């Protein structure tokens, strides 16, 4: 494994607070999702349909983009196209500058994180207020999200409390999560309502109507997007759906998979700026359609990944994520879906550990609401890494030697005999230390093999 990944994993595993925090949120989410899906007899059929809807859109992405562009333009919105993250950020910064924006209110968007929008705004000298409570917490802490639904999942209540006491104007007095949330409400309210520009992502782009759908439980999207003069949406190409009814089918799966609720508290479909007589709403609405590698993913064996609706269920149910949390993954997106996406976004050489650090247990695929074959896609990255010679020489040589012998049964049996003898030198029952096997014996004992292999004993007539 790479040193950088190794170091992040070690740091994460040594952080007991992190483990506590991740278990509290992911454990709760797992239980709630389980109850919601358990009460939905046709979940399996619904998710197959959801996968088919997304596959249809991905296969016809160009057509749907053009359709969406026309409908959104007709609603009065301005549609922009960005091939790369940098282009997308430049477009957003340009709109903000033209609007004379001093501050923007951002409603949590993982695409914004992916393209580096917070940093781009900062570099342009534009003030940014993160309005999602978790994003607010990590903005105060100067960190990045560690989960796509709960970006501050890695923080315990005690850590959040400390942060609010240090940074809020009127921090909470009573030490409770309710009081902490109220402290954030006091802190953010004015900033949110006075922002010049509101920036959001999109959960769905409705092709036939040009509507942009956002879902939140806090209502921070609406509070961030309705008061400012300008509303900017940045959305990945894969967010398209043919119609509202298709979106509804996916929404049922999204909310249940993420939080176990039947629907998010606030589900809003925006279509263009303020109209004649409207008492609120933005004067301009801009939609930035962002590719950033998506069209290439479609054509390079990762089309199924574009089904993803960003519910977070795969990471909540991942044994690796539950141990190391989100930051150790090192990319924008953590967990199983992140381990598929990050090599595509950041390059495989820098991230080959992510597809490697997976037990292939298949739980992520089982819970995915759009049936993404995540283990298969991860295996695809491992194969690419092998083909491109990115795997360590020791592994390649070891595996090569093993495969060479295993193709020659007589030689293989001799090798097994030798290995058995070597292991039994270290002990006959439990072996607690064995040369070259520190990976195993560092944390667990190894049962010594029997004196003779099955094949040898069978050949001698034992039954």
């Amino acid at each position, binding site marked *: 494994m790479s040193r950088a990944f190794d170091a992040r994993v*070690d740091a994460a595993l040594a952080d007991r607070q992190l483990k506590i925090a991740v278990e509290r949120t992911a454990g709760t989410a797992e239980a709630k999702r389980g109850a919601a899906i358990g009460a939905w007899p046709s979940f399996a059929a619904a998710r197959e349909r959801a996968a088919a809807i997304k596959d249809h859109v991905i296969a016809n992405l160009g057509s749907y983009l053009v359709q969406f562009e026309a409908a959104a333009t007709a609603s009065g919105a301005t549609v922009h196209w960005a091939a790369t993250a940098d282009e997308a950020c430049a477009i957003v910064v340009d709109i903000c500058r033209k609007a004379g924006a001093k501050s923007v209110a951002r409603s949590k968007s993982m695409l914004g994180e992916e393209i580096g929008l917070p940093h781009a705004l900062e570099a342009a000298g534009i003030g940014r207020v993160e309005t999602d409570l978790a994003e607010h917490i990590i903005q105060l802490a100067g960190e990045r999200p560690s989960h796509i639904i709960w970006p501050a999942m890695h923080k315990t209540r005690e850590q959040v409390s400390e942060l609010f006491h240090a940074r809020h104007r009127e921090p909470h007095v009573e030490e409770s999560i309710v009081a902490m949330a109220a402290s954030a409400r006091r802190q953010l309210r004015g900033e949110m309502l006075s922002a010049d520009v509101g920036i959001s992502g999109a959960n769905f782009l409705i092709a036939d109507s040009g509507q942009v759908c956002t879902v939140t439980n806090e209502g921070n999207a609406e509070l961030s997007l309705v008061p400012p003069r300008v509303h900017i949406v940045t959305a990945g190409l894969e967010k398209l759906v043919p119609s509202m009814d298709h979106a509804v089918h996916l929404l049922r799966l999204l909310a249940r998979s993420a939080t176990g609720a039947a629907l998010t508290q606030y589900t809003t479909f925006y279509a263009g700026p303020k109209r004649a007589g409207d008492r609120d709403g933005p004067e301009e609405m801009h939609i930035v359609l962002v590719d950033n590698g998506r069209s290439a993913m479609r054509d390079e064996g990762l089309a199924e990944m574009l089904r993803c609706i960003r519910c977070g269920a795969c990471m909540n149910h991942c*044994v690796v994520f539950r141990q190391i949390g989100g930051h150790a993954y090192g990319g924008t997106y953590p967990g199983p879906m992140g381990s598929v996406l990050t090599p595509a976004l950041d390059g495989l050489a820098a991230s080959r550990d992510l597809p490697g650090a997976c037990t292939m247990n298949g739980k992520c695929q089982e819970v995915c609401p759009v049936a993404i074959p995540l283990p298969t896609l991860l295996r695809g990255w491992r*194969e690419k890494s092998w083909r491109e010679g990115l795997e360590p020489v020791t592994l390649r040589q070891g595996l090569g030697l093993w*495969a060479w012998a295993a*193709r020659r*049964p007589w030689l293989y049996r001799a090798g097994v005999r030798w290995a058995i003898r070597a292991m039994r030198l270290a002990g006959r029952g439990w072996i607690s230390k064995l040369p070259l096997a520190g990976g195993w014996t560092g944390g667990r004992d190894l049962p010594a*093999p029997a004196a003779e292999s*099955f*094949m040898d004993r069978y050949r001698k007539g034992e*039954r």
Partner: protein
Amino acid sequence: MSMAPSPRVALFVTCLVDAMRPRVGFAALRALADAGCEVVVPEAQTCCGQPALNSGDRATATDFARRNVAMLESYAAIVVPSGSCAGTIRCHYPELLADDPEWAGRAEAVAAKTWEILAYLDARGWRPEGVALPATATYHDSCSGLRELGIKAQPRRLLGAVDGLALVPLSGEETCCGFGGTFCVKYPAISNAIADEKAAAVEATGAGLLLAGDLGCLMNMAGKLHRRGGQVRAFHTIEVLAGMADGPAIGEAQ
């Protein structure tokens, strides 16, 4: 007991059972014979190729797939005392050979008659007879068997026929134990942390025995339990069903 006439069954013993715990293989022979099968152990067998498959070495994995398909295709059924090795043959060989016109059909045919042993015995309607084990056990569902092959009720049904054996549920029984084949030595720190939680869950059941259907997972869990100083003993389920749980448990001198 009503059963189909004796099929000629190949036992694919798996590399781990061959080298580490032959008694799982002998238990399999015993149970299959009791279930009325004519069992053959193909001489040329070594490994299903999973280490290559999971390391990304597709070419080697495909080569193993071809060799094993050729070796196994003449039998009525192929029985494997491991969910993950059976899953490799059943689910991944057809995938690996899908684009090879000569081999695709043959791989499909072998896949269709490859069984994990507990699922096979259960499907044949076999139940252990006269096997007694006065103990309390808990059961871990190994991931490949569970999710690739749908093995869940079968081992419990079979164990239900063992006299005196009480099964207590394991909290998180469907949660991976952190073995993951080469994962456990490539990322030992993560693997250990996962195994620790699994071991704690096993200990919390109060059961004296831990059972599962995959030797890799069992070695991982038992090795962790022993390192923690616990008293839980671990067996492959087929050892229990074949009446061989009176012998050494995993890690006890064989």
